[in-house]
């Protein structure tokens, strides 16, 4: 159970998140939607530990994460796939995924030079795990390519594979489908659904509201840093506050630009 308890974060005078609370039970696929600037990415960064909240608390199974830096949260099972492609461009695709297992493995400089049997075994296991993760996202053929040479859609899937190598309990996906072509989008949707079917708890931020409503068990809607609705896709998409937030004062016209037509027409 991931618990976000009245978390607030402001930059200057502007609240990016204000008293945001959310409870995500194990195995749930939770969608997080909201107009631009609603504070979705800020929320993810607060959960992953790249930002510290001004107040409030984030905990996993009752264990507070607040004092942990991001790499320690990774050890406790929090993984994040960033918006855009944050890869390690100087490394191969396989090596990128192997870094993802860092939180679960051991060994520093001395182990690197001396290479005792335990270290060799761990290296072999890490490699095999990385290969399985690559196969999972359909990138096994590209294992030895430089990561920077992949097209965007594959880079996004590589990021997912890297997150999987940490065998996380909670996976945060920040706009994984942005910039992808229709075919790539369908593949990604299927992948997210499969991962969740295997029991992984997933939080999904996505502009494509159609994708979120088709995938998520529940959806939390943020607007101007605050939670304005929380419920099943059917509940949320008929909530008048959500429709107003998406349509704004501009009415139907604005909907054309925000993708809110999915919401409005349900």
């Amino acid at each position, binding site marked *: 159970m991931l618990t976000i308890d009245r978390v607030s974060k402001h930059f200057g005078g502007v609240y990016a998140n204000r008293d945001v609370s959310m409870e995500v039970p194990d195995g749930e696929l939770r969608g997080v939607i909201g107009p631009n600037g609603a504070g979705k990415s800020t929320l993810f960064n607060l959960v*992953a530990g*790249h930002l510290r909240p001004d107040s409030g608390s984030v905990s996993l199974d009752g264990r507070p994460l607040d004092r942990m*830096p*991001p*790499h320690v949260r*990774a*050890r406790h099972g929090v*993984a*994040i796939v*960033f918006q855009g492609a*944050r*890869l*390690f*461009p*100087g*490394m*191969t695709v396989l*090596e*990128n995924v*192997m*870094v*993802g*297992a*860092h*939180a*679960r*493995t*051991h*060994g*520093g*400089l001395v*182990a*690197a*030079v001396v*290479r005792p049997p335990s*270290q060799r075994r*761990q*290296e072999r296991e*890490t490699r095999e795990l990385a290969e399985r993760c690559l196969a999972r996202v359909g990138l096994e053929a590209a294992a030895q390519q*430089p990561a*920077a*040479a992949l097209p965007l859609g594959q880079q996004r899937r590589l*990021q997912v594979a*890297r*997150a999987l*190598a*940490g065998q996380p309990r909670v996976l945060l996906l920040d706009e994984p489908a942005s910039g992808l072509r229709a075919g790539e989008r369908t593949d990604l949707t299927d992948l997210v659904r499969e991962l969740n079917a295997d029991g992984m708890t997933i939080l999904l931020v996505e502009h494509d509201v159609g994708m979120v409503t088709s995938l998520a068990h529940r959806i939390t809607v943020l607007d101007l840093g605050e939670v304005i609705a929380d419920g099943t896709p059917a509940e949320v998409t008929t909530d008048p506050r959500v429709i107003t937030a998406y349509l704004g004062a501009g009415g139907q016209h604005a909907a054309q630009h925000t993708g809110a037509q999915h919401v409005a027409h349900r």
Partner: protein
Amino acid sequence: MTRRPSTLLVVVAAVAACIAPLVLSDQTFFVHTVLAAVVVSGLSMLMGYAGQASLGQGAFVAVGALTVALGTTRWGLPPLVVLLLAPLVAGMFATVVGRPLLRLQGHYLAFGTLALLLMVQTAMSSIDALGGAYGVSGIPAFGVGGWTVTDQRPYAYLALACLAVVLWSSARIVDSRFGRAMRALSGSETAAESAGVPVGWTKVGVFALSAAFAGLAGAVTAFFTPYVSADSFPPLESFTYVIMAVVGGLGTIWGGVVGAVVVSVLLQALNTVSSQPGLPPTAAPIIQYAAYGTVLIIALLFLPRGIVPSVGSLRLRRPQGSPA
């Protein structure tokens, strides 16, 4: 990715390096060049992978040299013991100072490391236990058991052995759990952190590693010279290491060696030219300083990634625009 140079090239270079001391009558230039390669190998990792510039690697060379100087003359430790101790002491020193120092970034860190070198120099010249104004002399010749070095040549091979160990360790480190974490840092610190890489400690680890290499070079220098004082480690030498690292190619195993050899040979050639009869005595330093600037500018203009990656990409024909 680690590009492997062709085995043939490595064998030829290794054979040439092993024959050179037999041919040379004076080993000083050779030993200094090989030891510079040892220092620059570590610096190249620090700059290329951890993205941290150090203008003060001489501080760690000094710590290694002092370990040998004090260990042999004051505490009577055997030469082999102090030789092995020197990189450990330098590495530990770097771990202690690295934690606060590496909170600085970019230019601030570069100047912080330079300040560290100046502080080490000041400590050496003002504290008598560290040599004081006269430095530490009377360092015994290197030896193992009953065998003692009596001329220069064995030092050339000792330096080569150190370089071999450094290159071998580097290759193993690059392809390891720690090495992948280190290389991930240059791609995206945020992503590395999310994958579970402790960014701060990994940087300190690379810093300590580069210091250990520098300390090893300092140890051999101390036996070779055999005299250690604050003036043995001028800041200009530390700047030269940076130039060598950039010219050779950052974040490559062979870049340090290539950079050290190319820059050393160039400076030596200029030295020979400027000491020709008829030239004023000020010619040598002027030409040398000019050469530093010129080499760096030419390298950054035409080989911004350094010699080794540029040659590697010619051979591998990597797609245009892909980062090193």
